[in-house]
């Protein structure tokens, strides 16, 4: 099963394993999943989770639990570019809902869906993204964009391949 993990992913995981005690390999599960998800266009498959479980010597279900718990992991195939619009209190007061509505209309999808061409994924963001003074804000592929307006959203999203 190991061969499902790329050499690079294994290197990264090994790097993380070094900082934990040898009998606590499970500590590396978050880092391992993050790396594997990154290499797989932003989502995990059961096979990949199984491979991580085998590599770390964990029961498979233990990996499924972690991957399904954290909203940063996608366990269904999603579009290449992940868009999270914060709708928590500060952002909400600054008009986050309109931004969400704008993006949904622009892309023709609902929150939680991906565009058919696999280009965008509009993720349901669960928590405050900790950029409250710049609300409304969104995170696209791990980068923050603040003080959003429809024009600014267009600018950011249209650039993405």
């Amino acid at each position: 099963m190991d061969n499902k993990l790329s050499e690079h992913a294994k290197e990264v995981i090994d790097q993380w394993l070094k900082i934990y005690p040898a009998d606590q390999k499970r500590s590396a599960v978050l880092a391992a999943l993050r790396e594997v998800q990154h290499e797989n266009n932003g989502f995990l498959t059961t096979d990949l989770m199984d491979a991580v479980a085998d590599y770390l010597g964990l029961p498979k279900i233990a990996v499924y639990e972690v991957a399904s718990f954290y909203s940063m992991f996608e366990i269904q195939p999603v579009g290449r570019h992940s868009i999270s619009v914060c709708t928590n209190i500060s952002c909400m007061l600054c008009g986050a809902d309109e931004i969400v509505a704008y993006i949904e209309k622009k892309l023709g999808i609902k929150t939680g869906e991906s565009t058919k061409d696999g280009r965008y994924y509009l993720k349901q963001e669960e928590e405050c993204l900790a950029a409250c003074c710049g609300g409304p804000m969104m995170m696209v592929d791990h980068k923050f964009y603040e003080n959003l307006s429809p024009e600014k959203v267009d600018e950011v999203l249209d650039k993405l391949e």
Partner: protein
Amino acid sequence: MTDDLITIEVDGKPLQARKGQMLIQVTDKNDIYVPRFCYHHKLSVAANCRMCLVEVEKAPKPLPACATPVVDGMKAYTRSKLAVEAQKAVMEFLLINHPLDCPICDQGGECELQDLAMGYGRDVSRYQENKRVVKDKNIGPLVQTDMTRCIHCTRCVRFGDEIAGVRELGATGRGEHMEIGTYIEKSMVSEMSGNVIDICPVGALTSKPFRFSARSWEMVQKDSIAPHDSVGSNIHVHIKDDRVKRVVPSENETINEVWLSDRDRFSYEGLYSDDRLLSPMIKEDGAWKDVDWETALQYVTDRIQTVKKKTGADNIGALVSPAATLEELFLLQKFMRGIGCHNIDHRLRQRDFSDQDVAPIFPWLGQSIADIEKRDAVLLVGSNVRKEQPIINHRLRKATLRGCNVLVVNPVDYDFNFNIPVKIIVPPTDLPYTLAGILKAVAEQGGRKPDDADFIKLIERTNINDKHREIARKLSESKQGTVLLGNLAVAHPQFSTIRALAGAIAKLANITLGYLGESANSSGAWLAGALPHRKPAGQRSDKTGLNAFSMLEASLKAYVLLGIEPELDCWDGSKAMQAMKSAEFIVCMTAYHSEAIKSYAHVLLPIALFAETSGTYINNEGRSQSFNATVSPSGEARPAWKILRVLGNLFNLNGFNYNTSIEVRDEIQNLISNLVPGNEGRWEIPVSLPTGNGNLQRITDIPMNSIDPITRRAHALQQTMDVADGMVHVNALLARQLGLSAGSRVLVRQEECSVELPVMLDERVPERCVLVHAAQSCHASLGPSYGDITLNKV
């Protein structure tokens, strides 16, 4: 230890406690009830349900009793206003999502949530929102899921992780989306999986075979003893309308704790199989007809008398199930010896009897079941203990969690649910040689030699390798070690050699030797005298009769069978079948009328099965446990001890005037009460060690749910993975050499028998070996459990 004792006060009562105990352990011990869902005394503390909140003096908020360690002088209140309010609030939270449809829930009437909702719930819910719905999962034939009812206590998850040793269930998702399940659809494969039914506090996990067939308040509960492995787990039988509805464990800390193996839990379904024999039957001119008991027994008497007169009592043989009760075993041997015949045996799956005269009075575990968990090193020889004696395996697993090394010498690379530091997987013919290697290594390391010169000679020429040394070192270093011989060792064609070598290893390493019994009375049958060479209580018999194998080889004129299907239960199925077919007269005391039985038997006498008869089992640790019948026997069936009593009287034998099975038991108990078990005994030391001849060898194992007639008829168990599969298991290398692949059909040949079977690739099987399960109809057309075998592609 007294330093550890502290005093706390609960609800105004001073209580003694040990430091570090959780509050709930102390209240439980003192019969102060604290409500709970997630806490279970055999599982780790999760403290996630919060139902056990209590008030503790000086604590600013209520604390969970299951996760609050006691400290000296602590004052707790379990029923104070604060505590009860907190408990009620938690109950209200739990009921936000839990359906309130107890009338259609199988757990209704025995549900912890229902009970506590009665005590702590409000009459009306303040929530209007829709309740969440969770899709049910199919997790196999034994456990039914209703996941909408799950309250996320995670008992089942912790059970898998901590007790079953296979983490299959988990909590995926979070918040309102959290679900308990296997994530990807799959069956639970544990020999103990049924226990999640008991520990689930709600109706999320219930028994599939029992589903919707009775309500808890309609049933009566009676105690009994589980009839399969040699553990003798204590059980409750739940009965409605004189029918066994289900079986659940009864707590006995020294034996099964609170657990039960799946086989012991679900085998009751076999009581009501379609081929249950309901009336005595006689074959007349090839046709079967029902008769009354009197006719049947008179017929048996006449026919046996005829055989006896014509060819002598030595031409009769009795084969009896090791799962028969002590009383049945005893009376059958009394009857046989009474008519002048010593051919009686229960060792159906054994081949090598050469050392039976020096064997212990009865083979036993060599220690108590509870002591197994204190062992620091265990050498398992020829055993798939996880499937064969699941409760003993659980104790072993507990031992390993405390640092015990379990070392394995096996002919098949079985899966264990704990870590095995050293294992040696060898073809059966190499098993004795491997043990000799370990013995030699133990001798070298201890700087001692076996006492016996013959042993020294035997191991002189043995080569030892690192694994032998490693095992030897772990055994020699152990303070509380043991060597355990399993079912495959007992069935081995050189069992006496294995026994001798294992015994010598144990002696030299100064550890105990134990036998893992296959059936409920594998130990008891020896004490009851169901043996050709010994009378009850190990007394020497003046004449030695034929053993189970020789009785078949000799093709006797008449056989008396009790509780067995010889073609499935004997070491050599086809030999058994031939012997049965060529006999003049066969009387089957049986609960079933299979096609095979009908083809060779002449009289069928219906017997009561485990929950239907009173009796006694002596388990592997030598503990005698008697039980009463819990339901009436099906149809006209009678307890076998009564049948034997009547037969004894019809033959005018002395001492068959028992009124109850208790009188029979007391007669045996009188004989055996002073016996001290001991496996140390003596051995027959062989002059040389067997070696393989290079031919392919057969290995036989009996999957746990194919072990005896009743289990083979238990419907749900038959849907599990642990049944005989009728396949030829070979490893990929051998398959390649023979040009076989998975699914290809081969002609399997042993001696004069042959049968065509499909191939299964199985890497657990060592080189040059072929694993075939026994106890299935194709076994009946194959030969010995071990020995040469050939495969030809068809």
